[in-house]
């Protein structure tokens, strides 16, 4: 396994770099700046940083007011408190009036670990997906996180990006390009193509050779832009592969899997399988033990992939 790097650390550093060039960027947090790493921006630009305290609803609203005054706002907190807690504020105060506010969560998914289910947001993608016009991003490594943070600054609308608590393996380098509505094709499999996002991309990547040794030609697409989906690439995948296996650190309901299934069922119905959190809450434990127990593993992908392959 390659070098690992913190996505939230990269997010914080990228905000600082953006802040050095652009005077109109402001950052808001809700008493979690140390964890979300927006504190890096706070240290550099205290006059453009607002710690709203433990009041996420007020943070969202304040950001919309700042946006109306011409600022580009980034709001951060844990995924749990940045989405579910303030769903109505995001829908009615940001999206409906169409304010340029970016929501970047950290500690998304079950890999939050020891804090347990109250802090393990496995439904944020679903919640954000259904908001009209919302962009939803889930990067899989540090390089991509920097590129997407920069793209979010330029993007003149509202958007949500989720980051994990733990470090993820470096998958890309500066030559690779990423954007809203794009994806990164590692390989299109003749038998199975795995569509993954976030932490599940590196897990899925490790299964490709193992599939090969089983006589299955498997591919992988990093579908980090969950909304809008990269429809061009997905159509290409659908024309070249026999089955799709979607893997995500999120509930199997309403996430990347649901979006891809929706797309495929209209364009070209295809056999599909889903690796994600089944309809249950998580619990305390180390991130590795949680991934193991809740089937976010290479083995889970291989098992479901084999069943999918056998059904062709």
């Amino acid at each position, binding site marked *: 396994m390659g070098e690992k790097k913190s996505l939230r650390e990269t997010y914080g550093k990228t905000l600082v770099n953006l802040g050095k060039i652009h005077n109109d960027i402001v950052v808001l947090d809700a008493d979690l700046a140390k964890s979300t790493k927006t504190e890096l921006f706070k240290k550099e630009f205290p006059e*453009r940083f607002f710690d709203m305290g433990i009041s996420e609803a007020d943070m969202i609203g*304040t950001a919309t007011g700042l946006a*109306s005054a*011409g600022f580009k706002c980034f709001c951060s907190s844990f995924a749990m408190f940045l989405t579910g807690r303030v769903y109505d504020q995001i829908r009615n105060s940001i999206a409906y009036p169409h304010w340029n506010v970016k929501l970047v969560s950290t500690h998304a998914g079950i890999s939050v670990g020891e804090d347990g289910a109250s802090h393990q947001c496995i439904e944020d993608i679903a919640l954000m997906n259904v908001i009209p016009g919302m962009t939803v991003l889930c990067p899989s490594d540090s390089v991509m996180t920097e590129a997407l943070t920069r793209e979010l600054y330029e993007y003149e609308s509202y958007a949500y990006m989720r980051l994990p608590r733990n470090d993820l393996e470096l998958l890309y380098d500066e030559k690779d390009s990423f954007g809203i509505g794009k994806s990164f094709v590692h390989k299109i499999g003749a038998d199975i193509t795995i569509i993954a996002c976030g932490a599940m991309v590196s897990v899925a990547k490790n299964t490709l050779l193992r599939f090969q040794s089983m006589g299955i030609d498997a591919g992988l697409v990093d579908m980090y832009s969950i909304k809008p989906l990269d429809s061009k690439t997905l159509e290409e995948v659908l024309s070249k592969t026999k089955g799709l296996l979607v893997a995500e650190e999120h509930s199997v309901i309403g996430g990347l899997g649901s979006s891809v299934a929706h797309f495929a069922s209209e364009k070209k119905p295809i056999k599909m399988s889903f690796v994600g959190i089944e309809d249950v809450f998580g619990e305390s434990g180390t991130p590795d033990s949680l991934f193991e127990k809740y089937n976010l593993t290479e083995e889970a992908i291989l098992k479901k992939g084999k069943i999918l392959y056998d059904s062709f």
Partner: protein
Amino acid sequence: MKKEMLIQKSKESRIEILKMVYNASSGHVGGAFSAIDIMVYLYFYKMNFSKENFTSPDRDRFVLSKGHASAALYSCLGLKGIFPKEEFSHFRKINSMLQGHPSRKTTPGVETSTGSLGQGLSFANGCAIGLKMKKINSKIYCIIGDGEINEGQFWEALMTSSRYSLDNLRVILDYNHLQIDGHIEEIKNPSPSVKRFESFNFHVIEINGHDFDEIDRAFTEADTVQGKPVFIIAHTVKGKGVSFMENNVNFHGTPPKKEEFEKAMKELENG
């Protein structure tokens, strides 16, 4: 202050509000009538906000946090010529510029969308902070409903207003004592209101929200306050201006019937 002109504008606004809600067979008359005198004072006298400058960065801003009083907002914007008065007849109908609750994307002059209660003050705070950062000397006026302050976000926002010493912000409480399910005192009593808002480090002024002399006194005093946000407790009457609608919770969100409409129009026209 041109008091006679404001009294006349209030009368015109009430008539337009009543017609809008009657035509639409839906909408909120009671809470629009309780807030309209303050809104007329702001839109037709106090605020730097006109057909010519309503998108300019240095305009004063009005936020109707109690978005259900949308007809009151539309009457002011329409009578100011921000959009044609003909739009009034489309209120709450399909393809209309005038949505049931204020929508920034569809209605010129609406600063932000409101309707889900308790969210307007946070927006107003952000606006006030942003304008200070840009060294724009405009004022932000935000009307809050007294039922709306049941919402927790409002209290979060109050702490933000004083934390950032937003002396360019005036929060106005439309204190008409009624919410859909009854008397606010019987649901979540905000009394003692003056002490409560003073304790949040606001400069508090108490007025009769239907008396233009008192309204003018309050907003003039507000302009002298430095380093603190201003909170104006406006004692108002729900349904003010039509005798049988006053203090009658049945006219919160129920449109008047034909005979009620005709009777109310007569009262307003003769008032």
